[in-house]
């Protein structure tokens, strides 16, 4: 409990920092007054409420969604390398979005988010069945390779669509790097219901995931209905990933790193690998990392920004390599 509370405190501090820091330096007291509704000037009010608050809220929602999706995928596949980015789910959503925007001409989030869900679901299912072929079943390496193969296919298709359409290209290059910037409050509000629904579904899975960690047979004998649990998990992953990708683009590795960190923390706190703890922990830790990456990206090379997705890949890439280097890729 103490752990959750301290994480929430860290997250709160990061939110405040994210609102306080930016391209234009606004003194902290002015920011606080603007937040409480007594802004010193229209300019400050605008900066705080139409730029920085939506951006921070988006970081919270997207981070929580990706953290949960990663934890859920690692639990469902019992695979330490699972992540919406690595297993091609994000690439599926991204291709579907690019296709619907550039070819079908859809412009609003409510238009293309459904395509994102369909793309995420199709890619995830394809990767799962490719990885499961053969006698040795679903090993971590096979699943990761299948994800990478499907990701390469989808990326090729995406660049085929984008390169024939210069306007799409210009928007694509920012979106593809995974940025929290330039989203309006309305967009953030529109994506929230999907993230909330996905998060509720995910958290409701937690007790069943604990049984699933003991193996399919044991879980079945404990009275879990495996098909139902998987269906619920897949629906949650689809909702969380599709909604996130449609706003901030494909962010790789956040869902990979966070659940491992959550597991270490849970171990320290003495609760062990209990998914009723791991899922909320991941949902709190992931926004911390995403917001921190976003803040650092805003500050280090002013006036340009490094996209949060790029910084996370710089952290997550070495982490992925370290995982691969481990003598035996232990199952989760």
């Amino acid at each position, binding site marked *: 409990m103490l752990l959750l509370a301290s994480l929430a405190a860290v997250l709160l501090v990061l939110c405040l920092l994210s609102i306080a820091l930016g391209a234009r330096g606004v003194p902290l007291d002015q920011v606080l007054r603007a937040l409480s509704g007594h802004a010193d000037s229209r300019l400050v009010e605008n900066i705080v409420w139409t730029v920085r608050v939506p951006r921070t809220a988006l970081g919270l929602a997207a981070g929580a969604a990706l953290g949960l999706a990663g934890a859920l995928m690692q639990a469902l596949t019992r695979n330490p390398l699972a992540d919406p980015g690595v297993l091609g789910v994000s690439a599926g959503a991204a291709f579907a979005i690019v296709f619907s925007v550039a070819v079908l001409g859809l412009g609003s989030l409510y238009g293309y988010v459904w395509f994102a869900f369909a793309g995420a679901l199709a890619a995830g299912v394809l990767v799962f069945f490719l990885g499961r072929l053969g006698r040795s079943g679903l090993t971590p390496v*096979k699943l990761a*390779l299948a994800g990478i193969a499907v990701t390469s296919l989808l990326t*090729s298709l995406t660049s085929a669509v984008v390169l024939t359409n210069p306007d799409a*290209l210009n928007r694509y290059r920012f979106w593809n790097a995974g940025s929290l910037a330039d989203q309006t409050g309305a967009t953030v509000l529109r994506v929230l219901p999907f993230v909330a629904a996905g998060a509720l579904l995910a958290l409701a899975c937690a007790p069943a995931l604990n049984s699933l960690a003991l193996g399919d047979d044991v879980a079945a004998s404990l009275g879990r209905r495996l098909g139902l649990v998987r269906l619920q998990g897949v629906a949650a992953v689809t909702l969380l990933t599709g909604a996130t990708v449609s706003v901030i683009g494909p962010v790789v590795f956040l869902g990979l790193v966070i659940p491992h960190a959550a597991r270490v923390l849970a171990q320290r706190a003495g609760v062990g690998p209990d998914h009723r703890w791991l899922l909320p922990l991941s949902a709190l830790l992931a926004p911390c990392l995403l917001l921190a990456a976003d803040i650092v990206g805003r500050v280090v090379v002013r006036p340009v920004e490094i996209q949060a997705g790029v910084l996370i890949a*710089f952290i997550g890439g070495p982490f992925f390599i370290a995982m691969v280097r481990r003598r035996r890729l232990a199952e989760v």
Partner: protein
Amino acid sequence: MARASGTGKPSVLARRHFRLAVPPVSGVLRPRLVAVCAALTAAAFLVFCWGVSIGEVPIGPVDVMKALAGQGDPGTLLVVRELRLPRAVVGLLAGAALAVSGALFQTMTRNPLASPDMIGLTAGAGTAVVAGIVLGWDGGPGAQALGLLGALATAVLVYALAWRRGTTGYRIVLVGIGLSWICTSATDFLLARGGRFQAQAALGWLVGNLNGRSAADAVPLAAAVAVLVPAALVLGRLLRTLQLGDDVAAALGTRVQPVRLALMLTGVGLVAFATAAAGPIAFVALAAPQIAQRLAGAAHPPLVASALAGALVVLSGDLAARTLISGTELPVGVVTGVLGAPVLLWLLIRANRAGSGG
């Protein structure tokens, strides 16, 4: 003497190979491999001429062949030699270089997935060259040198990070994939940071592009291919003993570490020069050696046939990219990417079925 079963007549193709021994030279002649190479050469030549013949002013295939031989009217000669030949030559050489490099890496690691585009070499070269474009020194020897540096650095990193008392094929692949992700996001950052036109140039190049290639692109690549492909062929003889495992190779008199280092440098050099000239054309290095191996019915990718298959794949991909959608010229990498990814999936399914998938 082997005979084709059932016919009673000795058939050349039914025999797997001939041993030729005319002292002091001896070797093995494989009729099927020779036939495959001849067919690939003919096909590549036809596609090469076809590619040169289409354009704003269509030139008949016969006139193209005449112009290549130096005959015909001056206008045609100018168009063919100055405008269209560099593009076709870059395509031919880049395809061959990528495929030979892919064959070297696939044979060395004994893993068809460990080709340069999967283990991040092209991504590393790509990041370095895009950095060059965004920083404003694109084109020419600068890009070549940057591409070479990027690919070399990535190769060293992959090898060092995958090393843990020896390496396994799959660890190299996965470490390479992790590194190529890091490189890709660095490229994404550079793209978003650059201006709109730089970004368009860089992105067009990043998927592998033959549009607007000039003789300046072709010359360094041709020089590299002229040096490195023969080197690969000479080293390829040692590759076969290396495949038996380090201990056996050493026992057979191969100096394992120097040979492996030379092979890696050759492969990296080929990829780097091809990438600097034409961009990281997706999946050629992965698919072409596999195609050549299947066609020749060999146990490992044959180098010469791989080079020819790579050239054929890139040239026909470019032809398709220019003609499929009238009015737009797609980059060749889009076509090879869309066609090559299923090859990757198929290799994966095969490995999984055989139970060797990690």
